[in-house]
């Protein structure tokens, strides 16, 4: 069997900081994952639909603009509404510690902030998919 973990790396909203998302995408590829990168400025609807068409195991979103409290929960709900109950949804970027509990409450499995070694992200995915 040739199973591979598939990850959608997505940038929701108008935030143009894509360096982190690209670094993460490359690190995940180097860890043996199949990464679907959809580029900047995706709406939550686009992200959820791409996750469905690509049948990914993980949706990984990056936001540095501060819009995470609005956008992350919307994406989680849309993905679950589409019947993808077991997709692991994680987030990263410039996210204040104080916001993290609410995001987890909303269904984001883990949040990775600046300075996180990419190995930690790989480890988390391997342990939770």
């Amino acid at each position, binding site marked *: *069997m*040739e*199973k*591979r973990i598939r990850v959608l790396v997505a940038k929701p909203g108008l935030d143009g900081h894509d360096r982190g998302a690209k670094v993460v*995408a*490359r690190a*995940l*590829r*180097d*860890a*043996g*994952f*199949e*990464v*679907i*990168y*959809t*580029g900047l400025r*995706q709406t939550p*609807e*686009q992200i959820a*639909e*791409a996750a*469905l*068409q*690509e*049948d990914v195991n993980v949706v990984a979103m990056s936001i540095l603009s501060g819009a995470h409290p609005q956008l992350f929960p919307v994406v989680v709900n849309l993905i679950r509404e*589409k*019947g*993808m109950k077991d997709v692991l949804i994680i987030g990263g970027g410039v996210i204040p510690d104080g916001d993290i509990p609410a995001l987890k409450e909303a269904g984001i499995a883990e949040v990775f902030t600046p300075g996180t070694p990419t190995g930690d992200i790989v480890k988390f995915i391997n342990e939770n998919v």
Partner: protein
Amino acid sequence: MDIAKELLAGSRLALSRAITAVENEYDEAVDIMKKLYPHTGNAYVIGITGPPGAGKSTLTDKIVKEYRRLGKTVGVIAIDPTSPFSGGAILGDRIRMNELTLDEGVFIRSMGTRGSLGGLSHKTADAVKIMDAAGKDVIIVETVGVGQSEVDIVKAADTTLVVVVPGLGDDIQAIKAGILEIADIFTINKADRDGADKLNVELEMMLDLYQDKLEWRPPIKRTVAHRNEGIAELVQTLEEYYGYLKETDKLTERRTERVKAEVLAMLEENIGRYVTRTMQSDGEFEQMVQQIQKREADPYTLVADLLKRLLK
């Protein structure tokens, strides 16, 4: 969930899961394909291939939009190479097709080449069938390059569009044999760049050389994909070629060849798998290897004996 049944009832999630089952070789894949097979054979399958960065994905995006304008539903299978070092991949074709994501008449799936390229061509063929059964009118398969692996993949297509770009120097010479074997239509993309005329002349000259062997002389179109130039004409040519295939019975011929190749490949694969499994379950294989290595026996005789035993 009964994937085949839900797919046929229109579920996009089931469509997606069916492709995963095939791609990951899940046990249920065979059952799904059995149920879907009677519903296949209706889509027009177009292969798009060409060198890295030629604009294949941008072109696919625009071709899909044109087909949508014509009222057709479309499936896209976009294939990118898997890294031989990590086994991972960045599947980036979709980035050029983001505007299609929310169109319910379109379904896009990215695939990595993963390990075996032979295996990929059969998985691609199955993914095409799955989209076909889901009712897509047109299915586009995008692959990089024109090596042997891609030749196998495009065999799943009714029509192969080869994308070339100006300014690649001697590349045309290097790939011409492979190209001629598979090209039904050429498009010179990035025709906004210098060298499009020169490339056009070169291609025509190459086709002249092979004129006698060509029943259909591939037309050479020009496109500027990111500006949507030449796309309507290109789609018209794709449709004309489809018409030609149908009128001349070439479509039936091609599809017959495809069924033959598929059945043979499946047989080989299954027999191969059976043999490996049987041989590795007892110690006899190891023993054989030892004997051959010590020159106590030769592989030719042993293999012939084995075959006789396994296939009786």
